């Protein structure tokens, strides 16, 4: 092994891999690790300069490459040897649902699909449709939490599926939410819905008996269409006003970030919110301080409307059907743009290995 490494240095065998200036001490193992991972290449092909001082720029390079190599190695895709990105719609895996799918959400093993009036469970590993619950004629968006599956009803309901029970009818755990509950999020204690018209958010507290209690808040909201929880706060996007709002536990707006009009569905990558706007851009907002850190416009963005994150990659679906745009999330490097299925996409999720797209007109979901 060491000889092979040294071979890259023109046959010069160093004391520590290719390096002739690092003694074979316990430090050698660490240096070889970051060499084989490509985190460092040394100061020359045969020297590492162990006593050299690292400046801030060099530190940035080392840390950036460390993050990338750890995420690449630690991903499920690496363990399963699935490093590819699909090249065209024909190679996607399709599952046909009983009705027109609207929303998809992964629970780690299955993909849940709202296809009103049904809510269906699809096995992620083989795409097999396993079972369907019925009784949700206005089902919209999904949440997997508390061992249950929740789905918003456009007419003001929140439905629950208990996947531990045999498939049957969904249960309405609350009705009378703000008009047109749309997207849905969970903070570990309560369920939040973004209600688009008239604009409000609802906070639902699970309880021992049905109906659960809900509080609907209109102050501060005009047309919320996206909502997510970043581990500390709820964030709400407002469609036409182009605002991103950080929300406190009571539903009060803590911070407003002005973005651009016509905001699509955002995704959180563990540090930043990726907010697509139909105005041909994806805006990156750091969750820790609400700072707009950059704006992406390339990589075939034409009407970007839905973002989803799989642990390494960010996927953006473009509403003009021209492309699915993929980025490496860590440094926002474009991976490329792929031709999408010729159908509108209403929701996207990831199970940590694949992305899943809801294709209502085809009555299908697609594994990407």
């Amino acid at each position, binding site marked *: 092994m060491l000889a092979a490494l040294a071979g890259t240095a023109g046959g010069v065998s160093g004391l520590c891999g290719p390096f002739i200036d690092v003694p074979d001490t316990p430090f050698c193992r660490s240096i070889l690790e970051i060499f084989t991972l490509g985190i460092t290449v040394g100061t020359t092909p045969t020297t590492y300069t162990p006593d050299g001082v690292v400046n801030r*720029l060099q530190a*940035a390079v080392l840390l950036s490459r460390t993050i990338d190599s750890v995420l690449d190695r630690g*991903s499920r895709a690496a363990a399963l040897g699935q490093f590819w990105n699909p090249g065209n719609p024909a190679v996607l895996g399709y599952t046909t649902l009983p009705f027109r799918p609207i929303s998809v959400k992964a629970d780690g093993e299955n993909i849940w699909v709202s296809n009103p009036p049904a809510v269906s469970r699809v096995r992620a590993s083989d795409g097999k449709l396993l079972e369907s619950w019925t009784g949700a004629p206005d089902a919209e968006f999904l949440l*997997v*939490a*508390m061992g249950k599956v929740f789905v918003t009803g456009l007419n003001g309901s929140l439905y629950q599926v208990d996947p531990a029970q045999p498939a049957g009818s969904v249960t309405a755990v609350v009705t009378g939410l703000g008009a047109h509950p749309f997207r849905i999020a969970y903070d570990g204690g309560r369920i939040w819905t973004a209600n688009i018209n008239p604009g409000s958010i609802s906070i639902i507290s*699970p309880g021992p008996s049905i109906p659960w209690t809900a509080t609907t808040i209109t102050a501060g909201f005009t047309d919320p269409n996206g909502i997510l929880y970043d581990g500390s706060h709820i964030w709400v996007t407002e469609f036409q006003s182009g605002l991103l709002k950080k929300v406190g536990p009571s539903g009060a707006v803590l911070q407003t970030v002005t973005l651009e009009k016509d905001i699509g569905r955002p995704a959180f990558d563990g540090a*930043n919110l990726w907010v697509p706007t139909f105005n041909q851009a994806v805006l990156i907002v750091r969750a820790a301080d609400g700072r707009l850190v950059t704006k992406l416009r390339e990589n075939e963005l034409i009407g970007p409307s839905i973002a989803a994150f799989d642990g390494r990659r960010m996927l953006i679906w473009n509403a003009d059907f021209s492309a699915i745009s993929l980025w490496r999330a860590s440094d926002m*490097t474009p991976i490329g743009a792929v031709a999408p299925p010729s159908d509108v996409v209403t929701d996207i999720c990831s199970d940590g290995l694949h992305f899943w797209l809801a294709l209502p007109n085809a009555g299908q979901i697609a594994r990407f």
Partner: protein
Amino acid sequence: MNRSARVATIFALVLAAVLAGGAGTALLGICGPFTDVSDPSFCNFVIEIFVLGITTGTTPTTFDPAAPVSRLQMAALLSRTVDATLARGGRRAALDQLWVTQGAENLGLTVVGSGPVDVRSDGSDIWVACGGADSVTRVHASTGRSLESWSGAAAASSVIPAMGRVVVTGSTAPGRLFSIDPGQPAGAVTTVASSLGSFPGAITFDGGHFWTANQAGSVSIVTPAAAPPWDVTNVTSGFQAPAGILFDSANVWVTDAGAGSLVKLDSAGSILETVTVGSSPRHPAYDGANIWVPDELSDSVSVVRAATGALLRTLTGNALSHPLAAAFDGQRILVTSPSGDRVSLWKAADLTPIGSFSTGAASSPHGACSDGINFWITLGSNQLARF
């Protein structure tokens, strides 16, 4: 477009950055907000650690690229790098499940056999040793469905999926070891050994042998064979009341509740190293670097570095009340406190408390494990909770 040109393009398109509260401040620099990173081939790296919050620069518009990094600064950079990498790489991030379960109303509950004690994930299903029912229940993690139950596991006390099987201890005198073949229809367990030290209450596997911690004062090393009985070696020397056991990928470690110690064993079961921890240490967890030991009678958790055996810190507070079992999910450590009806969470990377959370009145949380997405906790007389 090459990398540097791409980066230049991205940031040429940054018209203005909007600060918190909508206060607009132009942040257009040569490289993101930074005006002093002039070499475009390095910009991508700087931007990556900037957007991840690993650095904020030396001022809002400068990065000071040529300045040396002190050891203190490097520690901060590395710590934030670890946090950012774990936050992104965890399964919870990909599944959009970044919450911490807040209380009893938010648990997902599944009824299992009576007297559930230990619990372990095989990656897809959760296996629960139910000592009151002499059975083992298999629960489908994604749906929470109770799939099947295996009978005949007398005084089932701990469980481990390994070798494509599920192996279970029976806390009897002498102790027993049972095996389940999950590929077969559920039925009775197979007894593979019945001469373990008395009252085994915890089990681990080192890739070749099963190891059990036996409360009556021994450790058993069991070698699997093609057919039962499996060979058993009982080691008593140096042990008072072993309560918990784990394998850290190099060595087996045992908590001795009688001695108040954590001991490292060699491949023959001899004690290589003894670490004094709190009173009555119970079921520990390993986070990839450190061993977290719940000290039942000290209301503390001892954190021990596996590589050196050094006691890094003794954690108290965070609602610890006779803590019993620890579990690790890739980012967080969870510790059960049966007498407090609560679980306590810490961020494993820097040992900071996340908080404590109720599992319900008289729920008596006991054993715990993680499947990488949720923690699973045995509760009360017959329940398994998804946390």
